[in-house]
């Protein structure tokens, strides 16, 4: 069929009146990385578990992973989990950087063990073909490959493309019912009350439009990260924010928020995005993350200098970028600015290209544009970066595929780089940031709501891939145990009916606006008023704007088929989340001297309550005073 037609008939049977009711012990909302692990662990413990996933679990969540992080439990790692958490805590305190101490510490102790579990499921984590024999990042005995800091060995380079498949196969083997293409729109609470026990969830099938009611003893929120309305769909009207899934709209976050879960927002003054990816992610040269430690050169081939983030000393060779000992860290003593011996762990202390670079371009020291000098890298690094990290991550497989098909040859070619010093060459293009607001949880990954657990990037400040896997397993075990101790709660059918009415309203309209228009409006309001220049007045205008949208234009959105309904519901959630983030930012502006963690809770009265949790609340009663004690006390195995 060519494009000689203007419409295509919807191939799926549509039934907006249909209702399916499913009963289970454990409901996993979101079948990405944490959700898959949660379901596997709960099923292995004999719980009846189902997964509800907006996509198909087959490809849900990011398809893979190129870095397996935080493997401080790896026997070869030179830093212990306890040393790592001490360093991390100190570093984030000094710099005011957000972090999730509970999720991190548990991950530091479980990351490598979980990777070995994944290997048992068939995933590839070792260089068994000896393709990197003799490379400085390879352990010749175990054939494991390391990243970032080759003498510390807490981050691994892996064949992430195999991860999704391995998890999916295990879910199928365990016969876990997978409800794919079901978007969960609301959690159900006892008596329909905000703050009550979570007794299930409801959702809509994204192809048939049928309604789903899940009754569960325990529910695990595994819906990934969200962007707080900062950048959702491409606001230029073309191209979704590259590689990110629609879960960035935060439907899951919004459902948990409306049920009364304690939420830790982000101060959006420090996070700015535009919703417009001007280049496919990972398909341009850069010196960090997947592309670390690639040399960047200017138009004349002059190398951009690297710098150590703690000592602020220049890093002169490629070896120095990847071996902390050569930078004076003394294989895990401290850098000069930290005179006493403090262990140094990886990612937060790796060198980067100098951030004042833009000024130096303006002074004429360097000439744009910039290129990633893959041909100038040692052969094993070049293959590790492009042939392994980019090609085998999973979702960036297509980057390798498309570039090589177009004739790109890493042995000869330098890929153009579009960003420098935190800025993109195209001034309105995206900055790669994510919001990572999320839900507060305890050492069992329980939220403040009875019956609701959380895992992965939906946890406050997010946990990345290894942390998602670890927290998913942990929460799955805890939820399965909890489910054994309780019976199914009572569903409030009035709550179900209210939600049905809300959800299907856009399908009943015959005139109005497309969700895209609303989406662009939300992004525009957020960009204009909620940014590094925001003050109280600006934020109040934003809130008023968003409120007007909610009561005005949002009521006019039309959905002509279940797919448009899905996008509409996502956009409505994004609108609500944008308000949430603005409200949070406003509160932060009003408390310039805030010490501790500011969280927010929706009360049953409909009011928003702000809570200040003291610094180190995770080690205060009712918890034990040390990380290790809490870990040992709560460990499910």
């Amino acid at each position: 069929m060519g494009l000689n037609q203007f419409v295509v008939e919807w191939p799926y049977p549509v039934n907006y009146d249909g209702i399916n009711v499913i009963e289970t012990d454990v409901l996993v909302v979101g079948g990405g990385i944490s959700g898959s692990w949660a379901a596997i662990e709960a099923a292995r413990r004999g719980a009846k578990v189902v997964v509800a996933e907006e996509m198909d679990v087959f490809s849900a969540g990011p398809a893979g992973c190129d870095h397996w992080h935080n493997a401080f439990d790896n026997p070869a790692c030179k830093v212990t989990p306890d040393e790592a958490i001490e360093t991390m805590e100190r570093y984030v305190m000094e710099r005011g950087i957000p972090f999730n101490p509970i999720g991190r510490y548990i991950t530091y102790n479980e990351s490598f063990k979980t990777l070995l579990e994944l290997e048992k499921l068939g995933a590839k984590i070792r260089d068994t073909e000896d393709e990197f024999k003799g490379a400085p990042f390879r352990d010749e005995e175990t054939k494991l490959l390391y990243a970032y800091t080759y003498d510390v060995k807490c981050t691994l380079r892996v064949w992430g493309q195999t991860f999704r498949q391995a998890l999916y196969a295990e879910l199928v083997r365990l016969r876990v019912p997978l409800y794919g293409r079901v978007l969960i729109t609301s959690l159900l609470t006892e008596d329909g009350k905000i703050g009550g026990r979570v007794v299930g969830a409801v959702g809509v099938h994204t192809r048939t439009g049928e309604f789903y009611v899940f009754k569960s003893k325990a529910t695990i929120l595994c819906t990934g990260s969200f962007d707080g309305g900062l950048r959702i769909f491409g606001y230029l009207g073309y191209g979704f924010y590259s590689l990110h899934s629609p879960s960035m709209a935060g439907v899951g976050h919004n459902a948990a928020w409306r049920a009364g879960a304690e939420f830790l927002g982000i101060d959006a003054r420090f996070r700015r995005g535009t919703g417009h990816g001007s280049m496919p992610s990972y398909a341009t040269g850069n010196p960090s993350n997947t592309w670390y430690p690639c040399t960047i050169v200017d138009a004349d081939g002059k190398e951009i200098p690297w710098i150590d983030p703690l000592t602020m000393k220049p890093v002169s060779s490629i070896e120095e970028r990847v071996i902390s000992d050569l930078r004076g860290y003394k294989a895990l003593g401290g850098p000069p600015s930290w005179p006493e011996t403090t262990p140094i762990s990886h990612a937060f202390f790796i060198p980067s290209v100098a951030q004042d670079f833009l000024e130096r371009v303006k002074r004429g020291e360097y000439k744009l544009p910039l290129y990633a000098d893959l041909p100038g890298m040692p052969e094993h690094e070049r293959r590790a970066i492009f042939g392994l990290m980019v090609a085998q991550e999973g979702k960036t497989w297509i980057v390798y595929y498309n570039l090589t098909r177009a004739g790109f040859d890493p042995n000869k070619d330098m890929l153009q780089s579009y960003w420098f010093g935190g800025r993109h060459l195209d001034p309105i293009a995206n900055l790669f940031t994510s919001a990572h607001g999320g839900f507060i949880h305890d050492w069992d990954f329980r939220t403040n709501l009875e019956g609701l657990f959380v895992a992965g990037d939906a946890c406050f400040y997010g946990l990345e891939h290894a942390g998602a896997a670890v927290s998913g397993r942990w929460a799955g075990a805890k939820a399965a145990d909890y489910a054994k101790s309780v019976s199914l709660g009572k569903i409030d059918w009035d709550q179900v009916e209210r939600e049905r009415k809300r959800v299907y309203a856009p399908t009943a309209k015959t005139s109005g606006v497309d969700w895209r228009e609303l989406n662009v409006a939300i992004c525009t309001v957020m960009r204009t008023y909620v940014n590094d220049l925001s003050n109280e007045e600006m934020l109040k205008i934003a809130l008023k704007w968003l409120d007007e949208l909610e009561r005005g234009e949002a009521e006019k959105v039309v959905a002509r088929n279940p797919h448009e309904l899905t996008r509409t519901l996502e956009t409505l959630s994004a609108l609500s989340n944008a308000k949430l983030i603005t409200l949070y930012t406003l509160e932060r502006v009003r408390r310039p001297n805030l010490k501790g963690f500011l969280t927010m809770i929706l009360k049953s009265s409909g009011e928003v309550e702000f809570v200040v949790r003291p610094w180190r609340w995770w080690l205060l009663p009712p918890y034990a005073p040390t990380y290790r004690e809490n870990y040992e006390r709560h460990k499910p195995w």
Partner: protein
Amino acid sequence: MSGEKKYYAPLTPSIIIEFDPNVCDGCYPTFREPLCVKACRMDILLPNPYDRSKPPILIYPDECCECGCCVHACPKSLQGAIKLNWPTHKLPRWKRKETGEHFRVGMPNPPPPNPTPPVGGWYPEVKRREER
């Protein structure tokens, strides 16, 4: 009532996802659902409603997140059954170090493809538990 009403999706000219009808058989009858359709994270590929053995149909191309899951999932991807063409404003450029020549994805008179497979192959094996 909803059973009788017909539903549609609008079609927009686009080759962000491009099928080769000579290679793609709609995964018919091997798979219940075409694998690219199953894999699509944005759910913008529809099984061909007129003939299941023909390529799927792309709807709402502006929603594509360029994840490539559709191409990756296709059993005939390496034979060219399905391609992801990045949108025109998102085409990476590069420079050949020795000669200073400039290239971009999708340029007229492109250089020959680079046939080098990734480290570990295009599709590294996922070993099943029973096999080990």
